[in-house]
């Protein structure tokens, strides 16, 4: 789950913007931006772990959790990540680290308490897929590019308009007071424009994130061979157990088809544009389709 990375990215974007507003030299800002990118890229595992209060656990401390991860890694043929537990009651799990060799897989005590073993395994398979897909590296670089795009637009616009204004001044039209007013309007326009650019890149990154969540769902479900278990875990974690009756998800399939229709008829809502995760309906739909597909072909 990439929410932590997003919050980091947001913080980082704010920081760069503040630096720019304070009036630092562009080169300076770029250097700082790159240093931050470097830190984020190479220390993402430790930052995320620290922010969640996760502690690395040894095999002796959590033999069952290690056993599950061992087996999943052997099936997926990937190096085993470090395993951590965060003492938080919120049911959550995340994977971090720039590549397979520096990955940390962290689960909260809340998720350990709420999910039964096969469901937990499904969640771990989903998180391992994030590691295999190198999602942290991709998302870090993508959010950095978004910030860079916003910054560059601002700089180019600034240079262009300033040149244009200078030209106007040479023609001798307008007094000093008028020029000051124009400058303020231009400044405001630029601020708006760069905000729009940042918003667009922000949304694009979120779209990318949702796509990658679905990709991880899919790979994780294929790895454990039982999409249904991941769907169960998602429903439990989302705390939306009441939405679906206590029946098996496969039995509820016809019900789901009915249920999903209004969600799509509404079209793209604002909240769906800004969320980092696809809606529960979208994820369950994919998993249900996958389960049906596995039953048909072999």
């Amino acid at each position, binding site marked *: 789950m990439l929410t932590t990375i997003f919050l980091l990215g947001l913080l980082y974007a704010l920081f760069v913007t503040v630096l720019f507003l304070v009036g630092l030299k562009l080169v300076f800002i770029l250097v700082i931006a790159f240093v931050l990118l470097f830190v984020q890229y190479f220390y993402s595992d430790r930052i995320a772990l620290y922010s969640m209060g996760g502690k690395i656990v040894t*095999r002796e401390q959590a*033999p069952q959790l*290690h*056993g*599950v991860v*061992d*087996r999943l*890694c*052997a*099936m*997926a*043929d990937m*190096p*085993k990540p470090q395993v951590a537990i965060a003492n938080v009651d919120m049911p959550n799990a995340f994977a971090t680290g720039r590549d397979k060799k520096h990955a940390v897989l962290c689960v909260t005590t809340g998720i350990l308490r709420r999910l039964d*073993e*096969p469901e937990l*395994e499904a969640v771990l398979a989903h998180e391992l*897929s994030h590691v*295999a*897909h*190198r*999602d942290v*590296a*991709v998302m870090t670089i993508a959010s950095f590019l978004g910030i860079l795009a916003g910054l560059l637009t601002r700089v180019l616009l600034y240079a262009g308009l300033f040149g244009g204004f200078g030209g106007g001044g040479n023609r001798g039209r307008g007094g000093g007071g008028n020029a000051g007013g124009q400058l303020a309007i231009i400044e405001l326009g630029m601020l708006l424009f760069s905000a729009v650019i940042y918003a667009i890149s922000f949304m694009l990154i979120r779209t990318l994130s949702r*796509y*990658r969540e679905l*990709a*991880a769902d899919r*790979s994780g479900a*294929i*790895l*454990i*061979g*039982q*999409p*249904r278990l991941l769907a169960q875990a998602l429903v439990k974690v989302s705390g939306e157990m009441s939405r679906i009756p206590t029946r098996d998800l496969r039995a509820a399939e016809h019900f789901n088809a009915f249920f999903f229709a209004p969600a799509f008829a509404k079209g793209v809502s604002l909240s769906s544009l800004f969320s980092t995760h696809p809606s529960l309906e979208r994820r369950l739909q994919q998993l249900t389709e996958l*389960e049906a597909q*596995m*039953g*048909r*072909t*072999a």
Partner: protein
Amino acid sequence: MKLFDVLLGRTKPAQPNLDHLFGLPGAQITLEASLGLRPTGAAGVCFKPAAGQQFAQTTSEVEQLLDLGEGVKVHEESDSYGYRWIVVEDNDFGDLINEVHVVNTTLEDHGWGPQLLCSVFAFSPIAGGASDPAGAAGGAKVAGTYLVYLYKRGTFYPFVPLPSAEKRDSERERLLNVTLATDLAIEPDLERWFPLWGLPVH
């Protein structure tokens, strides 16, 4: 991994590699000669059961196929991690390897290669064998000696659990590693030598 796959968030399910199973007869001779270990005649194929009717058919097909052979006993077991084991028993080690190979290829032919976790071959000290360098005490202490084959890697690793709860004899495993290095491809990444507590193969 290709750049394109990274960008699209795709991974291919790892496919098994069965070729190295046939290095086992050589390893058997080495184990008997230098450590006094002999196959118990039991082996297990461990896999993750997948959803759907097709999979249930495949596993019963495997069992039918092996039940036809002479002197072969097959049964199925589940472990606490939700994996299933097809346990094959045959006193002829060469036949046993072939049968394990059949189980694997049958599962693989039906497209369940990615669900395969490992195959395990059990060994035990020859009764009263003085050739065991660990001595009688060392031999009696361990709960069994296993060679685990990791399909996705095409490598083996030794697993020697101790009878006391969830401990393994790492020293003995390293000794086996050195002994078998010329016969088998041993998994170089020690992180992947995961313990298989309570495995149903004896």
